[in-house]
């Protein structure tokens, strides 16, 4: 909300500099987001208020005039091109050297006077644009009549306009008076309320119109007044200036008064042309099915029975609390005004404005909740102003329909509750001072406060609401910093999260960069990595209102995100890349929240970096990916089994399912080159996926432990010929299961070879064997015997023979 300091000062004295004022307001009332200083560049000596004494034609130019102005030092002649300059006006007048906005370039520059068409000019009569107030350069700025001749303009109309963000439950702060009340409370200054006096004619308002509320649940109160003898015209400069400073466009004096009072009090008002109200009656009621109304913005609105309408004898004339109808609009032919000031159910206004996609200054206020007693207050203020600026003659009395006035709530606040919530004591004098300043009624007996909030604060309903009022005005800086006391809650075991975080940090340790990508993706990207017959993943959950079409679906696989990220980085990365993300797959569940399945997905590929004095394979390959998996699993204290697998989007023959014990825990593979190419990846790229739920289940409660043996192990390397189709894991499985009198045997494969020297259809696997006895040092003879037994077993089970 725009908060002009000059307007605020009508109600409360403020002598703080803008920065200090903004801080005080932000600390206790609402957030000041910034402020604009009006008249920052107006030199008090050079830019002043003047009066136009006379306007005469320019001898040499049709479009120019000679204005005689008085700036307090006698008549002076200036050349002026503005069509609206007229004798009797107060205007802004600049003399040589004043800093002004150049009408053509829009930049600040110093005024240099020169003769125009042969006539010397003593100064310049200024437009809004030259003063930096707006882009309006059509005519000169006409000042309010009460500006003193010769006064510095900055004193007359200079201002600071604060931009304030207020709260969703505080309609009162959307009124400058409401704001002033808060400022008065925090600065200790008295509040001056606006003039609400007006004269009343002989006729009574209820002779003009009757009000019947047919939907009292939606319309809590409806007040109507009648003003005769309206002279519709532009409102006076001071009112226009204030409306503009507050961000509203002046329309005419009647509409401007309704807007002015709304800005002032926070209570929306609406003016009807009384002569267009049919049947001299007002009936707030629900819309009937199929009813329509063309609103003031010229849009025909389709209404439904949940919406509250203001109707006359024939039908709707306004969408209650949101916008009036064109059929009863105030116009130049209006002479009698029916002024509506009502109170509506906040939720109903919000629902209707959401449904109609129509937010207005009125609806923004009503939906926050306004006290019903603000209606007559705003009526009185508006009647005062209509009499003042539209020559109106108010009829006597208000037509006030208020079916069920609620008693003011009384809130019981024990003093002890203040300390219980805040941790400090606020003494009772301070409690009474703060609450009274905010307009609350407060009595105290035996350490209990009985508090009645003022009618403009329907948001205050509970003792703790009052505690907030107290502490924000008392000052949060008075709150000390203390430490939580009491027992700590019991720790819940979170095994999955522990595994996930361990894997995450270890993956980074293994050279993978963590990425975090958008969890919403497109159906097209998902279809590249998800099999069309994958029940869980091919029909992802969709957003109804995605931020962009490429973020429509909650991803059921992280693979697309990782591959896209890999491809994007490949544009500027030459070396090998290793990326991973820890996230969830959102798997649809019928009529319930989706299952958020936690996974790690990693991709890697590309050229190794140049290695000093060390040879190596040129590109990362499947075994780099698998090695990473093995390291991650080893870190968790388990060993994985890798078996050939075929899966959508992964290259057959280069894909392994990973299992630990009985649990399938992931996959490691080369991404199918066609799929990689669909992401613009033109090199082999490999993928790892680990699934935390089964992985966590597969972990032993405690990892296996055995003390290191006191006896040395015996080592033997040997090469075996096996059928080419025999996986190395089969060999290792046999060796691991081989029992030889208390000697444990372990083995690693360190080479695979096919080609010269190896018969066709076979391959050679080189093994490093280690023999370990728990009770003795193994001798050469022991080892030979065990090895021979093992070789016989391998020959029997797998057809393996010792390679010569």
């Amino acid at each position, binding site marked *: 909300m725009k908060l002009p300091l000059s307007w605020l000062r009508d109600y409360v004295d403020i002598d703080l500099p803008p920065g200090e004022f903004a801080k005080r307001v932000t600390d206790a009332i609402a957030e000041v987001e910034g402020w604009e200083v009006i008249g920052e560049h107006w030199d008090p000596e050079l830019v002043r208020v003047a009066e136009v004494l006379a306007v005469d034609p320019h001898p040499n130019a049709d479009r120019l005039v000679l204005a005689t102005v008085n700036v307090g030092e006698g008549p002076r002649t200036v050349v002026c091109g503005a069509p609206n300059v007229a004798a009797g006006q107060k205007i802004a007048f600049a003399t040589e050297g004043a800093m002004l906005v150049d009408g053509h370039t829009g930049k600040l520059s110093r005024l240099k006077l020169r003769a125009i068409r042969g006539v010397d000019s003593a100064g310049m009569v200024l437009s809004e644009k030259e003063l930096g107030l707006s882009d309006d350069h059509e005519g000169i700025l006409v000042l309010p009549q009460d500006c003193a001749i010769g006064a510095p303009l900055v004193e007359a109309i200079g201002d600071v306009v604060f931009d304030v963000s207020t709260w*969703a439950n505080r309609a009162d702060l959307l009124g400058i008076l409401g704001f002033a009340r808060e400022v008065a409370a925090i600065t200790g200054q008295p509040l001056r309320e606006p003039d609400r006096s007006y004269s009343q004619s002989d006729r009574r308002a209820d002779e003009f119109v009757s009000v019947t509320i047919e939907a009292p649940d939606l319309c809590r109160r409806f007040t109507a007044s009648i003003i005769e003898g309206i002279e519709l015209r532009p409102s006076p400069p001071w009112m226009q200036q204030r409306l503009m400073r507050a961000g509203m466009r002046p329309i005419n004096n009647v509409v401007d008064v309704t807007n002015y009072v709304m800005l002032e009090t926070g209570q929306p008002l609406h003016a009807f042309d009384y002569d267009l109200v049919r049947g001299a009656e007002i009936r707030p009621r629900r819309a009937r099915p199929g009813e329509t109304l063309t609103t003031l913005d010229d849009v025909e609105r389709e209404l439904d029975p949940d919406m509250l309408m203001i109707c006359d004898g024939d039908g709707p004339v306004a969408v209650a609390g949101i916008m009036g109808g064109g059929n009863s609009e105030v116009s130049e032919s209006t002479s009698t005004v029916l002024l509506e000031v009502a109170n509506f159910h906040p939720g109903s206004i919000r629902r209707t404005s959401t449904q109609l996609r129509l937010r207005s200054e009125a609806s923004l206020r009503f939906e926050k909740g306004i006290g019903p007693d603000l209606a007559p207050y705003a009526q009185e203020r508006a009647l005062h102003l209509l009499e003042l600026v539209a020559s109106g003659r108010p009829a006597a009395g208000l037509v006030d329909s208020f079916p069920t006035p609620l008693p003011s709530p009384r809130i019981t606040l024990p003093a002890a509750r203040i300390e219980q919530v805040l941790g400090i004591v606020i003494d009772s004098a301070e409690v009474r001072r703060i609450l009274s300043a905010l307009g609350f009624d407060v009595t105290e007996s035996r350490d209990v406060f009985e508090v009645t909030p003022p009618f403009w604060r329907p948001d205050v309903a509970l003792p703790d609401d009052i505690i907030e009022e107290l502490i924000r005005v008392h000052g949060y800086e008075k709150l*000390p910093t203390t430490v939580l006391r*009491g027992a700590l809650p019991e720790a819940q075991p979170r095994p999955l999260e522990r595994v996930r975080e361990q894997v995450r940090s270890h993956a980074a340790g293994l050279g993978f960069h963590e990425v*975090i990508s958008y969890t919403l993706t497109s159906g097209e990207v998902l279809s590249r990595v998800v099999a069309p017959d994958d029940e869980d993943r091919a029909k992802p959950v969709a957003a109804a209102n995605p931020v962009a079409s490429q973020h429509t679906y909650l991803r059921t696989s992280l693979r697309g995100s990782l591959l896209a990220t890999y491809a994007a980085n490949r544009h500027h990365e030459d070396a090998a890349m290793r990326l991973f993300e820890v996230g969830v797959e959102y798997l649809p569940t019928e009529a319930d929240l989706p299952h958020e399945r936690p996974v790690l997905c990693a991709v890697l590929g590309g050229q190794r970096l140049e290695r000093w004095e060390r040879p190596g394979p040129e590109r990362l390959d499947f075994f780099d990916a698998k090695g990473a998996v093995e390291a991650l699993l080893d870190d968790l204290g388990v060993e994985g089994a890798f078996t050939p697998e075929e899966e959508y989007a992964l290259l057959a023959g280069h894909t392994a399912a990973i299992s630990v014990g009985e649990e399938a825990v992931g996959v490691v593979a080369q991404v199918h080159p066609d799929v990689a190419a669909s992401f613009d990846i033109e090199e082999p790229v490999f993928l790892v996926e680990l699934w935390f739920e089964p992985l966590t289940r597969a972990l032993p409660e405690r990892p296996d432990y055995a003390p290191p043996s006191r006896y040395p192990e015996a080592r033997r390397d040997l090469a075996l010929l096996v059928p080419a189709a025999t996986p190395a894991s089969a060999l290792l499985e046999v060796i691991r299961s081989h029992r030889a009198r208390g000697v444990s045997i372990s083995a690693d494969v360190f080479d695979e070879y096919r080609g010269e020297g190896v018969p066709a259809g076979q391959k050679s696997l080189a093994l490093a064997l280690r023999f370990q006895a728990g009770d003795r040092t193994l001798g050469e003879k022991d080892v030979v015997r065990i090895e021979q037994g093992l070789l016989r077993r391998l020959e029997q089970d797998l057809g393996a023979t010792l390679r010569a």
Partner: protein
Amino acid sequence: MSTTEAEVDSLRAEALEALARAGNEAEQEAWRANWLGRKDGRLTLRLRGLKDAAPEQRAALGKSLNQLKTTLEYELEARRESARADALAALSADAALDVSLPGRPQSLGRLHPVTQTMNDCIDAFAEMGFRVFEGPEVEWSRYNFDAVRIPDDHPARDMWDTIWIDTLIEGERQLLLRTHTSPNQIRVMEQSEPPVRVIVPGKCYRQEATDATHEWMLTQIEGLAVDEGVRMSDLKGTLYAFARRIFGGDRQIIFHHSYFPFVEPGVEMAIDCFICRADGSDCRTCQGTGWIEILGAGMVHPEIIENAGYDSSKYTGFAFGVGIERVAMLRWGIEDIRHFYQNDLRFLRQF
């Protein structure tokens, strides 16, 4: 074989001359085998031949030969020692490395800056006894809004522009992408009894256009403490410790008034600007105010305490929510929030 004293002298001369010529390790080893070898070293054979010498000469000769052996062993060791020293000197001089050549590249990964920041925040609160809890990202509207006192027709809904899930349940849109981690206040209290002291990290989503300070996907950490005797001053103390841990030990904090439907009183917390230290300059980080807003917080609304089945006259609580991206941006001076989820390695490598 018998030996004379004269022969001993000439053996010495010959052996030492040969040793001087043995320049490398292999030649020194050959010299050792030739002279001192256990089987057939020339001196070994002479020593073994002592038994054939004339008995009156045997003692003197034996002494000379053993002296010669000691000398040769000593000289060999000295020769080896000097050769090693020469080799090391050559390694340092002739084979000196160009240490300015690049190191052999190691593959080094990093955690995402959001993860790093989250971990630091979690650690800061964990030290104060907060446990971690996690909740779903796709959430029931009733948890995200209604249960935290933001009914359907309340303007506070405007504070959170929502991405809704397209699925209808019982003919209604009931699911959404959580707009904040606050629904977990309810989830935690439903599942446990006081004392409650949890933090809830996680992703949140907003239906809003992105710019340098707004992202539609964001990461939050929610805090909740409910127990007998939890006071707003404890909230201030907790956040004070957090601010100092994350932003530096000399940080100051202030609270100012704010509104969130699920807390009462509600505040925003700001820290003093550690960039300009409130020097009055036109600081980009704090807009010259000297204060940087960090998070929203407050005392848990008594209705929420009651809805959890706790007695609000006995139990009080506080809650807060921190935007992790904002913390990360402040820590590292990151100018644009959109960097985080672009995942450009040139960005990610810097943290």
